[in-house]
């Protein structure tokens, strides 16, 4: 029973750590499916994390904070869109620039506003997303096996976690069951065909980049207002790149994105609990190995040793109507 509880706690923190990865991964999925590479996920998350925490700290209302975070992320998305769609610039270079812009500006503004060495004040009360206890969670806690599962694992997360998980079926439905989704995927494979059909390539790509901005905004807000209580410098800590890795790992598919981010979330959870691995497999695993594992696995997938990851065909190519 004790072992079971430990396992549940481990899975619980897996879910917690997987949530920002999942949101960012889905964000990248929309963008890359529409043919816009986005290595600026990290920067957008970071900007959103700062503005959510800052505005939540000032207003005392986390929902206003969330909106501010999404807004900040959307501004960076717009820059990426203008650079890579309107001016047909290099999407990768634009992404790099956005990451640096966010890394620098967040600290600069944090210092100017709060004067606490590049962090926001700690969020309290309504300034944070509190865990939600689902109905009957406490009443059913006594039921063997399922009771604790419901109480520990499924109940007791912040609203954004449920939003992230709901975004998976929604994304699948939007991309694979609607006209918009068909067009969005087509614009990432063969924009000329979409253009011939009389649908705006530029409009679709901006829509995809916009959705990407919204999801990155939620991911960033989750980091600073739910996972932690406030913004600290560089708090996204490479999660945008792990999400990018998960996206490749999932081969640009929504349900697989969920599995990939849960797996990478589990690595993260295990990194903080080395004692559990030692119990399970009877030997010590270095934390650094676990930290590197998502990247190593992605390289192996990319190398095509375990099934081939084929990106959307028009990815990274600016669309030129007339040559």
């Amino acid at each position, binding site marked *: 029973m004790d072992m079971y509880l430990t396992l549940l706690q481990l899975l619980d923190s897996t879910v917690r750590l997987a949530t920002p990865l999942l949101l960012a991964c889905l964000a990248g999925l929309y963008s890359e499916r529409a043919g816009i590479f986005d*290595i600026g996920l990290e920067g957008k998350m970071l900007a959103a994390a700062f503005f959510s925490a800052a505005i939540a700290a000032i207003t005392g209302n986390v929902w206003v904070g969330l909106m501010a975070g999404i807004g900040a992320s959307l501004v960076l998305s717009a820059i990426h869109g203008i650079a890579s769609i309107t001016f047909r610039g290099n999407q990768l270079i634009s992404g790099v620039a956005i990451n640096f812009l966010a890394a620098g500006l967040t600290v600069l503004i944090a210092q100017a506003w709060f004067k606490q060495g590049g962090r926001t004040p700690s969020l309290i009360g309504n300034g944070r997303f509190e865990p939600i206890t689902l109905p009957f969670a406490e009443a059913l806690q006594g039921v063997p096996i399922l009771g604790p599962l419901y109480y520990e694992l499924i109940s007791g997360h912040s609203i954004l976690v449920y939003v992230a998980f709901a975004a998976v079926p929604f994304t699948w439905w939007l991309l694979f069951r609607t006209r918009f989704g068909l067009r969005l995927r087509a614009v990432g494979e063969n924009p000329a065909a979409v253009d011939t059909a009389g649908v705006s390539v530029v409009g679709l790509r901006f829509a995809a980049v916009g959705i990407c901005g919204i999801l990155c905004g939620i991911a960033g807000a989750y980091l600073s207002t739910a996972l932690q209580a406030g913004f600290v410098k560089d708090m996204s800590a490479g999660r945008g790149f792990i999400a990018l890795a998960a996206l490749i790992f999932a081969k640009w598919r929504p349900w697989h994105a969920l599995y990939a981010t849960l797996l990478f979330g589990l690595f993260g959870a295990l990194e903080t609990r080395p004692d559990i691995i030692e119990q399970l497999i009877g030997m010590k695993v270095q934390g650094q190995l676990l930290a590197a594992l998502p990247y190593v696995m992605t390289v192996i997938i990319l190398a095509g040793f375990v099934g081939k990851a084929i990106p959307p065909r028009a990815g990274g190519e600016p669309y030129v109507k007339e040559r």
Partner: protein
Amino acid sequence: MDVMPKWAEVILVPLISLLLAAILSALVILAIGEDPMAAVKLMVTGALGSTYGWGYTLYYATNFMFTGLAVSIAFHARLFNIGGEGQAALGGLGVALACLYIPWPHWSLALIGAAVAAGLFGAAWAAIPAYLQAKRGSHIVITTIMFNFIAASLLNYVLVNVLRPQGSMDPATARFPEAVHLPTLHEMLAPFGIAFSKSAPANVSLLVAIAACVFLWFLIWRTRLGYEIRSFGHSESAAKYAGIAPVKIIMITMMISGALAGMMAINNVMGEAERLVLNSVEGAGFIGIAVALMGRSHPLGVFIAAILFGFLYQGGAELALWTTIPRELIVVIQALVILFTGALDNMVRMPLERVFLALRKRKEV
């Protein structure tokens, strides 16, 4: 026929991009309630007003020359090597192993040995993504990003578990022996009667970096390999048709690129810290991207851009010391430079092309 004359292409476009980046940076400084003119003045006196300032400016510039050249050569083959950070970290490991385990009789031999080790380690770290790109078609940008993180974990492991001296809590190697100490500019200039600041870290690797600039210019524009790299970058299919093997070009270009990034370690690890510490690269690998973009991938341009970024780095440190503006201002400026000279290049170029086209038409009438 080009729309713009060459001087506009080489000088005007980068200059306007830079100006836009500067104006926006000034606005950022204004927005956080500081005076941009005072900030610039402080940066100039701090970075260029004394030999101490120059010593730091040139020390940073040396780092950026290596990483800028690394990104540049890859750009010539239309490869985006974003992995300079990881390659430089591995280069640091190569330098540390060479300095700690080989009893060098003199610093000059140690410098050659350490540079070779750094280059080999950096090249090896770049070779895997290069191979995957050439043979497996995996995107080099993604794999080099992944390799940056893998390098960080690897170095963390090696420093904590393997190279850390017994009894030390600090995740760093032992100090390198006295014999591998590289002469600093102070020591080099003293015999000529020039008094250079004693505490500035600029050292003999600056000369190696300048030599690397010259070497790269020669390689790209005066050798057969350079010609092959450039033609591969212009058109892969045409290069293939001309009998240039893509796999060979990708592998060689990326390994030269990785070796250059790795060789940065002779400056920061061997010349300055004299031991390998955690996160020794400090983002210089990424600044290489900005430097290469600003220098238009030309070694002379890289040289100038590296000094400019060295100035920004040292100036930024002075700003952080004397005002409330944090060091991160430099990261913002760097981002704006990358944005305007790289991603928004067409935004500057398109209106300029229109102007030149109009001018030419008027001449013809």
